[in-house]
C-alpha cells in the first residue's frame, strides 16, 4: 500500500442558520460568535479552520463539547455541508463534489467510527461488518471473507453471529472499528470513538488502534475531548475552542508551549513523562562516561524507568544507528516531568 494521502482543510467556515452564506463575510470582518448569535440569530460552528492533516498519521482534534470538533470531522466526508472554504483530499475538493462523486468518495476513500457505535441492531456482527462492502456492490462471499479477517483482527472471533445488543460497549465499538476497517479506505474518521467506553476498555481500544495504525498507516482523524487520549494517540493535535483552532502541533509542543492560558490550564494535569521526548531534555553538548544508553525518541517516563532500574545517574541518548547524540541525567529528567507548563 502506498503512502496515504493527507487532508488539507483551508479557510473552512460553518455557520448554522438560514442565511449562513451571507454571514460569512461578517465573521471574516471580525464579528464574534456571541455577537452573531445575538444580532442575527446564527450560530458560528467553525471559524476559519486551517489544518493540514498529514497522510498516514493520526491527527487528533481536541476540544470540549460545543467546540465544533464533531462538526469539523463531518466536513471531511461532508455529512455536514460547509458554508465556505475547502476540504482537499489530494487535488479533490470534497466541498465541490456532486452527490454521486461524494457517494463514491464516501464508499471508497473514507470510513467512520461513531461515538454511539451506530451499528445496525437487526444485523449480526458479520452482517454489520460487511455493510460498507455490501453497498459498494462487492459480492457477498468475498465481502464476508474480508470482513471475517477484520473481525478476527479486532479480537471478536467467534462473535460473528451475535447481535450488537448481545455485546458490551467495548465489543460493540470493536465491531464499529471492524466495519470501518473492512472498507479498506485511506481515511479513517473517528468521532469520539472511545468516549463512551469505560477507562480500562478505552486504553485497550487505544492500543488496538495504535497497533493497527503501525501496520496500516491510514490517515486517521480522531476526535476527542480527553487530553490524555489526544496525547497518547495523536501524531499531531489541533485544539478547538468556540469553533476556532487555538493551537496545533505535536503533543510535546502543546504541553511545553501552550498557546494561551486556556490550553495551559488544560495541560497542567497531564502526565508529562509520557509526552515529552528524551531528545527535548538531553544536553547535546556532552557525552556520558558510562555504558548506559537510551534510545532517541522515547518518552521521559521510560527513561526514568531505566534510571531507576540501573541506579545510574546519566545515560547517552543514541540514535537509530547507535551513535550518541546527547546526554540525559536523572536530575533534568525528573524536573522536566514535574514542572508544570507556565504561560
Amino acid at each position, binding site marked *: 500500500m502506498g503512502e496515504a494521502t493527507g487532508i488539507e482543510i483551508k479557510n473552512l467556515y460553518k455557520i448554522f442558520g438560514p442565511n449562513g452564506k451571507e454571514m460569512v463575510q461578517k465573521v471574516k470582518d471580525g464579528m464574534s460568535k456571541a455577537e452573531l448569535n445575538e444580532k442575527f440569530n446564527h450560530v458560528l460552528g467553525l471559524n476559519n479552520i486551517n489544518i493540514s492533516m498529514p497522510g498516514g498519521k493520526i491527527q487528533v482534534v481536541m476540544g470540549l463539547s460545543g467546540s465544533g470538533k464533531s462538526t469539523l470531522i463531518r466536513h471531511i466526508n461532508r455529512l455536514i455541508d460547509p458554508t465556505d472554504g475547502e476540504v482537499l483530499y489530494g487535488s479533490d475538493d470534497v466541498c465541490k463534489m456532486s452527490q454521486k462523486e461524494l457517494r463514491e468518495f464516501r464508499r471508497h476513500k473514507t470510513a467512520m467510527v461513531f461515538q454511539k457505535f*451506530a451499528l445496525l*441492531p437487526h444485523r449480526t456482527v458479520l452482517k454489520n461488518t460487511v455493510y460498507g462492502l455490501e453497498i459498494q456492490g462487492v459480492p457477498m462471499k468475498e465481502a464476508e471473507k474480508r470482513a471475517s479477517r477484520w473481525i478476527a483482527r479486532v479480537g471478536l472471533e467467534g462473535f460473528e453471529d451475535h447481535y450488537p445488543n448481545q455485546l458490551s460497549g467495548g465489543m460493540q465499538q470493536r465491531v464499529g472499528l471492524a466495519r470501518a476497517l473492512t472498507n479498506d479506505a485511506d481515511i479513517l474518521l473517528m468521532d469520539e470513538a472511545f468516549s463512551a467506553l469505560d477507562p480500562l476498555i478505552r486504553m485497550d481500544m487505544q492500543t488496538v488502534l495504535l497497533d493497527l495504525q503501525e501496520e496500516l498507516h491510514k490517515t486517521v482523524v480522531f476526535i476527542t475531548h480527553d487530553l490524555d487520549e489526544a496525547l497518547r494517540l495523536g501524531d499531531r493535535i489541533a485544539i478547538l475552542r468556540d469553533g476556532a483552532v487555538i493551537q496545533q502541533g505535536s503533543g510535546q509542543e502543546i504541553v511545553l508551549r501552550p498557546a494561551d492560558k486556556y490550553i495551559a490550564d488544560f495541560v497542567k494535569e497531564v502526565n508529562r513523562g509520557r509526552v515529552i521526548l528524551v531528545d527535548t531534555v538531553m544536553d547535546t553538548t556532552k557525552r556520558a562516561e558510562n555504558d548506559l544508553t537510551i534510545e532517541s525518541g522515547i518518552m521521559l517516563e521510560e527513561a526514568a524507568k531505566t534510571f531507576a532500574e540501573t541506579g545510574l545517574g546519566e545515560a547517552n541518548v543514541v540514535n537509530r544507528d547507535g551513535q550518541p547524540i546527547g546526554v540525559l541525567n536523572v536530575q533534568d529528567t525528573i524536573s522536566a516531568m514535574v514542572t508544570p507548563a507556565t504561560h
Partner: protein
Amino acid sequence: MDWIEFPSLSRGDMLTIKKTIDGSFKEFTRAYGDLIDKFFDPLQDFLVLLERLLITSPWPVVLAFFAAVVFLMSRKVSITIGTVIALSLIGVFGLWEDTMRTIAMVTVCTMLAIVLGIPIGIFMASSDRVQRLVNPILDLMQTMPSFVYLIPVVMIFGIGKVPGLIAVVIYAIPPMIRLTNLGIRLVDQDVLEAADAFGSSGTQKLMNVQLPLALPTIMAGINQCIMMSLSMVVVASMIGVKGLGQEVLNAINNQYLTAGVLSGLAIVSIAIIFDRATQAYGKRLQKHSEVVHG
C-alpha cells in the same frame, strides 16, 4: 329580530347547489362508470377466485392450510391449536361458508392496504411537507362516516364486492400509512448518519436501514389494518358484501339474538387468530432485540 336565526342560504339556493353537484356527478358516473368498473375487474376476479377456492375446497384441507399458515407465522403450538378449535366451532355452528367469504375479503383488503399503504407511508416520511398534506386526508378517511363515501362508490360501482372492498380499504388503510410513516421517522439518527457515511444511496438506506428498523411499527400497522377491516365487514354487508357481516345484519333486522351473537363471535375469533399470528410473526422478526447483553 334577525339575530335569532342564522343567516343560512335559502332553500332554493341549497337545492340548486345540491342539484348541480349531484347532477354533474351522475353524468360523470354515466360517462366513466363502466371504465372505472373495468379498472377494478382484476381485483374482483382475484377476490372471487380466493373466495371460491376457500369455499369449494374440502374443509379438512382448508383447516389444515390455516393451521399450517398460523404455525409457520407464529411457530407456537398454542396459537395453532386455538386456531383449529375456533375454526372447527365455526364450522359446527354452520358459519363455515360465511367465514370463508369474510376471510377472503379481509385478506384481499389487507393486501391492498399494505401494497398501497407502505409506499404512501414511505413517501410521507420523506418530507414534512408531504406529511402536512397527507395527515388531514387520513383524518378525513378515518372520521368521515363510511356511509357518506359509500354513496359515490355505490353510484359508480353499484352494489357488490368492489364497493365493499373500497369502503373497507379506505377505512383500514390510514393506520397502515401512519405507522409506516412513524416507524421510519423514529429510526435512530445515528444509524442513518452511519449509513450515509458509508455512502449509501437513498434506496440502500431505505432497504437496509429504514424499513428493517421501522418493521415493528409497520407490523403494528398491518395488525391494526386487519382489525379495522374486520370491524368494517358489517358495514360492507349493507352494500352487498356477503359473509359474516351479512349474517349480523340479518340478525339485527330480524332480532335473532343467537344468530347475531354467533356471527359476532365468529368475527371475533377470526380477529384473534389474525392478531396472534401476525403479532407472533412480527415478534419473531425482531429476534435480535430479545437477547440483551447482561
